[in-house]
């Protein structure tokens, strides 16, 4: 077995474990926060940090799983570039909706957290899948791009300006995300 395939299987397994942990974490909360309304159909408010953690575990799990499948070369020859943007956009939309359900609602409930977890899992997998389609098919199908791998090796360089732009975007996102961590002196 090639190293890439082996690391892909490890990645996919790690993704399954992470997503499974998120699932277990989410459903282990059960009606614990408000047992008196369990089974009555009344939504129970869930701590925002729990819902957010489950969402991120689902997101990381879905992304890792798909990256693992890609790296393990499972069904790689069937991937075509068409629709990559659409798949990626759908993934990002689902991710945004999941984030809304688990983190942005004024009072996340168990139901919204479960929906957020599922959307995070699916959204991240779709987003990575779309990016894989886009990158794999820059010159047509994956098999074609793999065949032309040798010719294009020397074309890829590390332009500092491109890395800087990507770093600024990611740095801004990280700063905004850090703004969700609060310290209270009240």
């Amino acid at each position: 077995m090639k190293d890439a395939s082996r690391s892909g299987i490890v990645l996919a397994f790690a993704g399954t474990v992470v997503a499974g942990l998120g699932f277990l974490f989410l459903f282990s909360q059960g009606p614990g926060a408000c047992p008196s309304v369990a089974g009555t159909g009344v939504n129970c408010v869930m701590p925002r940090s729990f819902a957010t953690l489950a969402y991120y575990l689902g997101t990381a799990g879905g992304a890792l799983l798909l990256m693992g499948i890609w790296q393990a070369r499972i069904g790689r020859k069937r991937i075509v570039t068409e629709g990559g943007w659409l798949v990626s956009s759908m993934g990002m939309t689902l991710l945004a909706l999941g984030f809304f359900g688990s983190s942005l609602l004024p009072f996340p409930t168990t139901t919204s957290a479960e929906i957020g977890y599922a959307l995070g899992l699916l959204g991240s997998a779709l987003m990575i899948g779309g990016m894989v389609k886009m990158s794999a098919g820059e010159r047509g199908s994956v098999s074609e791009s793999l065949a032309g791998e040798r010719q294009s090796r020397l074309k890829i360089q590390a332009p500092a300006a491109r890395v800087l732009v990507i770093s600024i975007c990611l740095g801004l996102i990280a700063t905004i995300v850090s703004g969700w961590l609060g310290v209270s002196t009240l």
Partner: protein
Amino acid sequence: MTPGGGGVYWGFPLSWKSISAWLGYYNGFQYNWPVFILDSFFYTAAVFFFLYISWLNISLSKTLPARLLGSNKTIALLGMMTIVVFTGSLAYDYSYLWNLWG
């Protein structure tokens, strides 16, 4: 606990957003944009270092990360994500504040 007043501070490593209270009255969100930029420098430097080192290691082969980083579409997607996260965060602040007052 701060007698009479206090607040909640957001941001890491430096707090660039806060909401203060005095005798039970909330004064709304305050944003410290210079500190926000300082925090951004911190994260940008960390990401730049990581990415550049990674890129140097992967640039000799046509791996998936190298192609993703080298694509203009990646930059477009990241730019869109930055705008969405930024505006979403501001929208959340306003809805949170509205909820707090409501």
